[in-house]
């Protein structure tokens, strides 16, 4: 057990490289959102870590507040690397989001779902492709799945069926300037993919 934990760690160079690649990809995603909504998206430095299934809960709880959240997940796969993108929206974001997206319908469960799907397709798609382009992997995306609406982070974590002990997690926090809109994008790679994606990154570092 201990030996396994030791092999699954990142070197400083690898972490730095993941951060920089993510930084570029999230910038591309933010640019698409900024042009679509005519806003400025605040971009912090992304967090890159090897986490265990139990730490996933902490990662999510850290990002989302005690407020209710809605979440979408979407799988991606390519060149032997697979993972899930998880987008967690703070429910307080929806009224401002509806306004800037010029959404005219009633802001009920269905309306919020539509907004959630629109934003997640932009953010997840651009980010996954941005990372793929840089590590020279072409990712195919699965269908987005709603994990829950108006739920607590606890419920989200329980709804997932985590068959892994430790994996690579990239956390990105997006906020829109001057508006009450914030969300977290979490990229989780499968345990089996870590060696392969590390290899792609090492190739860049060479």
């Amino acid at each position, binding site marked *: 057990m201990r030996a396994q934990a030791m092999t699954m760690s990142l070197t400083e*160079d690898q972490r*730095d*490289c993941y*951060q*920089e690649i993510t*930084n*570029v990809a*999230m*910038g*591309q995603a*933010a*640019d698409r959102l*900024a*042009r679509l909504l005519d806003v*400025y*998206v605040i*971009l*912090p*430095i992304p967090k890159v870590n090897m986490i265990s299934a139990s730490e996933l809960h902490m990662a999510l709880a850290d990002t989302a507040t005690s407020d209710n959240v809605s979440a979408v997940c979407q799988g991606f796969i390519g060149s032997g690397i697979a993972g899930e993108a998880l987008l967690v929206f703070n429910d307080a974001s929806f009224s401002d989001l509806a306004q800037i997206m010029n959404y005219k319908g009633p802001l009920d469960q269905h309306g919020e779902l539509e907004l959630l799907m629109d934003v997640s397709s932009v953010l997840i798609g651009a980010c996954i492709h941005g990372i793929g382009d*840089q590590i020279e992997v072409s990712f195919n995306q699965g269908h987005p799945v709603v994990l829950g609406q108006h739920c607590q982070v606890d419920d989200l974590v329980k709804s997932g069926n985590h068959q892994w002990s430790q994996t690579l997690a990239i956390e990105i926090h997006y906020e829109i300037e001057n508006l009450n809109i914030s969300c977290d994008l979490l990229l989780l790679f499968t345990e089996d993919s870590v060696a392969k994606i590390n290899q792609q990154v090492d190739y*860049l*570092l060479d």
Partner: protein
Amino acid sequence: MALPVLICDDSSFARKQMKRALPDDWDIELTFASNGVEGVEAIRQGKGEVVFLDLTMPELDGYGVLEMIRKEDLPAMVIVVSGDIQPDAQQRVKKLGAMAFVKKPIDKAKTVEILTEFGILSES
């Protein structure tokens, strides 16, 4: 005389990538800085006549570096190399006096194009 060129980025990978994107056989004296404070200090010492500057950095970010350059009237031609490519970011750095804005990841062709455009690299 070799041209003093500064690469200012907090990521060692990004600094390496930027170095690889510099033109071949360019007669320069290259300096690296890993945050804005180090960057400004290097420019003050005359090590950055041409600066390749990242925006998102700890200590002092790229916007802060541009403000310092303007405030102290330092002789630096700044090319912003950024992952944040939103229209607003581009306008902000141009207003702060950056010469050019290039999106990451940068490559050699783009660097040569910009340096040539501003007459820093002469066509030979």
